[in-house]
């Protein structure tokens, strides 16, 4: 309304912006420091609030956090954390792809489980008949495809009818989890046991460890995928199109980006990466799937993806942190006889504090938003919308 509201103070430019001509920005080290600080403060605050909660429940926070440290890092336990990082990194990569494109793919649980179930469903047979590397590659592809297929309906609905994908991916997730269970109890059930679970992939056929460690090579695969994807998102025309669409969907349409194709493509990539994360997890760690099993990595990864401001390089340390918290926390919560759901509370607190810090930061115009504007606009999508030609 007022003339001057159009000229807010200019927050500093993110140095990683695609194709930015390299230019020494005065004081961008300071920007980086502030950005880092703003990403770390919510984590610290959440851990403190968690400590207060533990005190209220009559548990010792000192004991809890030292247990987390002990079981998550010390005495080679860091290797367990690294193993957990593999699927988490791929899950985070999958979320970054869609979030950058202004899309909320919240159907990660089903996409993961379907990928996992197909790996254990076909794995034993393939390993018995094919050379291991061939079977590995085929299983990776099958899992990725399963994940991708589960995104198709929400992707098409969003692309062609503008249907709100938050709702559709969640609904598809509930359906997919049940489908996975049906598969576990039906066609993929191990006939030799009475409890509902699939056959087990023989230990010899699991992904090999990195020499000298207990960390399987899936970890390296995940790191590699994250690095390649980071390059794709920040340096190529695909990445820029995604960013334009994410920041301003109307501008994307205006400049002639094929918006529908972009939506479907990023959805499929996201689903594929989530399937991949399941394959790495199953072939590297679990080797079988039990009915009603759901690690629900997506929920816990989301805050860290935001804290990293959808930057995949920054995602790595955050995921590492959560892997430690989760690995150590699993045992630490048991030690204080609380359910592991306590970790969910900490994750939720991180999200809340992130939002509050964001608010304070915005007030002081310290830096960029955690979320792209486009992502915030995603919720304005009606559940359905009249079909509009693009």
């Amino acid at each position, binding site marked *: *309304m*007022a*003339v*001057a*509201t*159009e*000229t*807010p*103070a*200019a*927050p500093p*430019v993110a140095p990683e*912006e*695609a*194709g*930015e*001509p*390299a*230019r020494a*920005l005065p004081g961008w080290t300071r920007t980086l420091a502030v950005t880092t600080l703003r990403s770390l403060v919510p984590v610290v605050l959440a851990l403190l609030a968690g400590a207060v909660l533990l005190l209220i429940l009559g548990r010792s926070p000192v004991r809890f956090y030292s247990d987390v440290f002990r079981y998550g890092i010390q005495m080679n336990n860091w290797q367990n954390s690294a193993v957990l990082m593999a699927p988490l990194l791929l899950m985070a990569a999958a979320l970054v792809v869609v979030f950058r494109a202004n899309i909320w793919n919240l159907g990660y649980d089903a996409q993961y489980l379907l990928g996992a179930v197909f790996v254990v469903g076909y794995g034993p047979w393939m390993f018995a008949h094919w050379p291991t590397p061939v079977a590995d590659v085929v299983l990776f592809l099958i899992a990725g495809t399963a994940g991708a297929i589960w995104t198709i309906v929400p992707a098409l609905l969003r692309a062609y009818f503008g249907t709100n994908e938050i709702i559709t991916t969640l609904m598809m997730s509930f359906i997919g989890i049940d489908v996975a269970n049906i598969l576990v109890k039906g066609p993929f059930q191990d006939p030799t046991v009475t409890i509902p679970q699939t056959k087990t992939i023989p230990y010899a056929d699991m992904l090999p460890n990195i020499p000298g460690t207990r960390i399987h090579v899936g970890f390296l695969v995940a790191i590699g995928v994250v690095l390649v994807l980071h390059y794709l998102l920040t*340096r*190529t*025309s*695909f990445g*820029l*199109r995604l*960013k*334009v669409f994410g*920041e*301003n969907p*109307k*501008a994307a*349409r*205006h*400049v*002639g*980006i*094929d918006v529908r194709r972009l939506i479907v493509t990023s959805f499929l990539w996201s689903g594929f990466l989530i399937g991949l994360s399941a394959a790495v997890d199953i072939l590297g760690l679990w080797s079988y799937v039990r009915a009603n099993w759901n690690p629900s990595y997506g929920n816990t990864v989301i805050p860290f993806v935001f804290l990293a401001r959808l930057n995949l390089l920054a995602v790595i340390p955050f995921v590492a942190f959560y892997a430690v918290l989760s690995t150590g926390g699993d045992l630490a919560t048991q030690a204080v006889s609380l359910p592991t759901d306590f970790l969910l509370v900490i994750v939720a607190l991180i999200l809340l504090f992130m939002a509050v810090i964001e608010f304070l930061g915005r007030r002081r115009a310290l830096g*960029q938003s955690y979320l*792209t*504007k486009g992502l915030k606009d995603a919720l304005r999508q009606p559940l359905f919308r009249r079909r*509009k*030609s*693009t």
Partner: protein
Amino acid sequence: MTVTESDAPAVELVGISKSFPGVLANDDVHFSVRRGEVHCLLGENGAGKSTLISILSGMQRPDSGSILVDGAPVRIRSPRDALSIGIGTVYQHSTLIPALTVLENLMLGESRRLLLDKGRARRRMGEIASMLGVEVDPDSRTGDLALGRQQQVEIASALWKGSRVLVLDEPTSMLTPQGVEELEKVLVHLKEQGTAIIFITHKLHEALAVSDRITVLRRGRTVGTISEEEIRSSDDSQIRARIVTLMFGDEAADLSDAAELQTSIEEVEALGARHVPPAAADDAEPVLELRSVTAPGDGLEPGVVDVSLTVRAGQVLGVAGIDGNGQRALAEVIAGQRRARSGTIELFGASVNRLGVSARQKLGLRYVTDDRLGEGIVRNLSVSLNLLLKRIGEPPFWRGGRIDGRRVGSTATALVGEYDIRTPTIATRAGTLSGGNIQKLLLARELSLDPKLVVFNKPTYGLDLRTTENVREIVRRLASAGAGAVLISTDLDELLELAGEIAVLSMGRIVGTVENGPDAAERIGALMIGDTGAPGAVA
């Protein structure tokens, strides 16, 4: 409500200042209005008029200064305060809710009672309607009313609580010439009842037509007031000259600019008496041809219905019409952002119906959008990337999918210089530029690299006069270089200045085409309100 004996003005603003980060929007502003008076606040876009209105209506709080009502100081901290004091505002952008009925809209500001009292509201509405001398059906959906009607509802809403001061912010921007006349009648009615009226505009001739007093605002400061006696006693051209000097300054540095601007204002005000742009030569090659094109609209806005038009090389085809009559749909269907449901669109004699935005762009079609911030730029991307936004992935800027940063940088630097885009660096986020510079950025993007047909949608809307003049010059140069142009504008003066032929768009249909000439304005106005037997109602 009788006129009080007190001589104090109904409202007086004393020394109001307000700054936003980087901008001093109001700087020691003094302004007052008496009962039964229309006091015009005149200033060009960006002079600080809207900020002053936001302060008066409680949307913003001033940094310093005071507001007196009937001589007594008041505090206006929210719109509620303003309304209860009796200051009612009709904003430039409608504050009616299209999905609600007229009565529901009016009852929105009702007092704090639990249940809605429709009977009382109906009576109050009757009172105000007779005060305004208008009649509106209280039960019709507001979105279904014509814009002129909607404005009357807005005025009724501003007077709902017995306003003594009515503030009108650019009230004519959405009206037909006939609608403006009706508004003037309403203002006369209100004046007679003793209402004080503040009328905000950036158009000189409007100010002269309606006001008793005129105050000019420049760069956030009140630079002069022309009293009632002065308006009555001096002749028209003297007052105009005085106002132009007030609006654009007479400092030495600005002298040449001011002189130039004064000419252009006179040119505009004289409605092209000196210079009528040429109509297209009939033998020139058609660049763009639309045949019976129909395309859907968005929501309540109409699309285009059965539109046919031809643009030849070197021609500027004007498209006139009240805002919201299918302008956007027309521009987008030509640009390829919207699919035509039927009809054909031809560029250089070949159908482009099946081509998208990029393909049409490669043929030489360009579109300067009116939604500059909404779809024109990506705020968080750099100026350089915004300049090349329509060429993502194309060589030589991208090779094998990878960006060539140096190439992008050098091209952007060249364009920034050529179009005089004021930006700290090419890496600056585009969202931080001013409105005028954003428009220059868009023009640079669209007009670089050999345009053959350019669609301009409201290209000068909201720009200051100097940038406006730049933009118009660009349009002229483009046409004289042999390209075709479609100029969609709600500013009739602009069309008369630039276009040889002007088509009139109403409810998505072309209801007639007028050759530019002495009586063009009246004929266009008549077409806008459907005087010439325009095809009937459109779904």
